[in-house]
């Protein structure tokens, strides 16, 4: 008995219309019913991964749309192409092609990237001048000359690398 009561209630709800559930919640057990906010009801949204949303897009149908819906109940071969598109637009807001098309957002993204890289560059320059101390003495020219001479004396990478580029006979870099 309880089973048939529940089935009749849901049939009654589906007759009233998809979005008008808030006005006809069945009251059970004599208690009051909390007001159902709009955001708690099934919503429509265009998403590629959710191709058939819970509700159709157009909630209040005009007279023309209502007659079209009646015609839809018959044979679909009698529908013209414009009518089919009109039925589609009742159920859906954007087609897949429309919802998937790209935006011009990437230009703002690239612009933002360049801007922040530039700001970082300015910060780094300021740091180099005002924050860091002097560089070690091993970077001076005399030190570097002695370093290179010692590396050549030690024959560092004599086959393909450093000392391979030095001409030991003429004491100069190979051409």
């Amino acid at each position: 008995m309880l089973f048939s009561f529940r089935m009749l209630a849901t049939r009654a709800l589906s007759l009233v219309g998809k979005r008008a559930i808030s006005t006809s919640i069945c009251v059970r057990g004599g208690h009051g019913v909390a007001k159902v906010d709009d955001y708690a009801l099934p919503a429509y949204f265009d998403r590629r991964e959710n191709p058939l949303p819970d509700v159709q897009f157009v909630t209040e149908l005009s007279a023309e749309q209502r007659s079209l819906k009646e015609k839809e109940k018959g044979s679909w071969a009698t529908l013209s192409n414009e009518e089919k598109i009109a039925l589609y637009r009742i159920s859906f807001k954007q087609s897949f092609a429309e919802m998937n098309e790209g935006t011009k957002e990437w230009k703002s993204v690239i612009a933002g990237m360049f801007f922040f890289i530039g700001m970082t560059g300015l910060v780094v320059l300021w740091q180099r001048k005002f924050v860091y101390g002097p560089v070690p003495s091993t970077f001076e020219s005399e030190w570097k000359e002695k370093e290179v001479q010692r590396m050549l004396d030690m024959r560092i990478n004599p086959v393909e690398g450093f000392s391979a580029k030095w001409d030991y006979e003429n004491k100069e870099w190979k051409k």
Partner: protein
Amino acid sequence: MSLAKPAMRGLLGKRLRFHLPIAFALSLVAAAAFKYGVTEPRKQAYADFYKQYDATKEFNNMREAGIFQSVRPTGE
């Protein structure tokens, strides 16, 4: 209005049949390029270097330059 029905099945197989031979071919090309562009010249460079290498002469030159701690240059 009457579009052709899109392909519903065999999409992965089609992609693999197209891309796998290309992937294998490109990998082989990359390996061959590295072998003949890098490793063979390197082996040849080492072979040429050691063909004319006189270890004693090099040692004496390094000794005279003063880099060793165990043998000082002749004359000290």
